[in-house]
């Protein structure tokens, strides 16, 4: 493609391009950090692996949030969590809620009350959704749905980009 493509300002390119660009920049930074400290890599390699995995994951969410910027409530919530160093806490809390959901959903199935079951399911699903979407706890219902839709769109693009990179690397 012609180099004119690169002269378009960043904000006007598609979301996928922006996501890809930021994520790759974050990965490059990570890589440079790693090659800088490669001499001390033999000891405590398990901890290093965990830390690297964690840093890549944080880079993925951080680059996704910064590519969207402040236009969306979920990205604003993510960015503020990153700045307050609370992203780790949110990731852990989210995973914990996932484990609890498995247990409670089996109880709900056992109740089998058709008239009440649907509203209970709705309420539960609402709460789950609030925990899953960053910043979801303080939103009203309409914006929660709206933010969820956009969040899903960006997450899908991010996952595609990461898959492309992994496939490319592992040829």
């Amino acid at each position, binding site marked *: 493609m012609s180099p004119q493509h690169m002269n378009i300002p960043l904000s006007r390119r598609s979301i996928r391009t922006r996501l890809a660009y930021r994520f790759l920049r974050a990965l490059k930074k990570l890589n440079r950090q790693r090659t800088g400290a490669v001499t001390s890599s033999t000891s405590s390699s398990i901890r290093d692996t965990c830390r690297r995995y964690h840093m890549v994951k944080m880079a993925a969410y951080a680059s996704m949030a910064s590519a969207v910027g402040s236009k969306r409530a979920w990205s604003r919530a993510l960015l503020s969590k990153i700045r307050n160093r609370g992203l780790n806490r949110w990731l852990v809390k989210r995973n914990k809620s996932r484990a609890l959901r498995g247990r409670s959903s089996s109880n709900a199935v056992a109740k089998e009350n058709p008239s009440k079951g*649907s509203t209970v399911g709705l309420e539960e699903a609402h709460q789950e959704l609030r925990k899953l979407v960053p910043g979801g706890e303080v939103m009203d*219902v309409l914006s929660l*749905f709206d933010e969820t*839709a956009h969040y899903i769109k960006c997450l899908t693009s991010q996952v595609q980009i990461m898959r492309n990179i992994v496939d490319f690397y592992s040829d």
Partner: protein
Amino acid sequence: MSSRRSRSRQSGASRITDDQIADLVTKLQQLIPELRRRRSDKVSASKVLQETCNYIRSLHREVDDLSDRLSELLESTDSDSAQAAIIRSLLM
């Protein structure tokens, strides 16, 4: 929690209409691959919400899994030229 919701529907300045909720539910439905295949009228709101939660959770799991593989791959390759090639191929 549900009482608060019904109260806001009856009184209050910003009334949430059922149409708005239905609109957003259809929008969500289009994004979720499982529900897109079925014809839209028959899927209830609670099913859409539950599928949304499951879908987001599976996406999070994929991000975790992919970042795990990526971190392993980052360790094994050193060349900067590989990354430059990736950047070029993805952005152009």
